[in-house]
């Protein structure tokens, strides 16, 4: 082997490699990117679901009660337990509706 380590051009020639290019590599990266994007979306939707659930459980029954003038307080009396339970069902219905909305965003790629 020629020993000319102080010659830049010679060292460049010695260290150069053949050109590499194949579609399989690009395809694998594209797949990884798609997977990454799905995961990121999933996290986004999970966060959204948690936020909507919390919001619904905490505020919807009270909001409905306020608007229907049944109560102005979170503390309900014995007599008002039944309507309050019904309102909880309404809250669950709103949560379900939100899930459907989120699912359609995902399914039809609206975001």
């Amino acid at each position, binding site marked *: 082997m020629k*020993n000319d380590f*102080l010659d830049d051009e010679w060292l460049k020639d010695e260290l150069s490699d053949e*050109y*590499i290019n194949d579609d399989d*590599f*690009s395809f694998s990266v594209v797949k990884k*990117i798609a997977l990454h994007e799905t995961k990121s979306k999933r996290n986004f939707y999970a966060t959204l679901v948690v936020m909507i659930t919390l919001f619904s459980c905490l505020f919807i029954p009270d909001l409905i009660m306020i608007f229907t003038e049944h109560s102005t307080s979170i503390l309900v009396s014995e007599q008002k337990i039944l309507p309050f339970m019904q309102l909880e069902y309404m809250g669950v219905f709103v949560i379900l509706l939100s899930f459907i909305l989120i699912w359609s965003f995902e399914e039809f790629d609206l975001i």
Partner: protein
Amino acid sequence: MESKLVERVQRDNDHHAFEQLMRQNQSPIRQFLRRLTLQNQAISDELAQDTFLKAFVHIKTYRGEGKFLSWLFKIAYQQFVSSIRKKTEQTNVEVEDKADDGKFEHRIVAEKTVKNLLVHLKPDERAILLLHFSHDLTHQEIAIVMQIPLGTVKTLIRRSRLKLKSFAEVSNSEKTNEK
């Protein structure tokens, strides 16, 4: 042309534009990582894929201040260094085994080319020679890629080069003795 493709990816998350960028730049990145991982094709390609994935995810942080390829080299080198740190991949073991441990004379006999002699250098020495001589990066670009001071770049290139030279001399003398 390249800057327009980058812009398209940054603005529209355009996968096709990124694919084109990947086609243009995959060869130097894969060559670099292959040499760094001592020709372990599976691991180097895995690192290269992660490099491009990371580039895609963080492409908005690329502000066009240097060459796009240099930015990719920086990510690739970081990927390689973190893979060594994790010490979970086979490459790590190989890198440690093959790095200069004072017993190189026993292995050096079969080596004929400069590329094969790279095995005896430490990862950072190997990286700096490849970036400078194989991929034509300037000292300034290397300093950014490897995140080391400019003065260190010059010292490291000189030191690695001399180290390579001394390994080659040992190799040659071994061959002469054999004859």
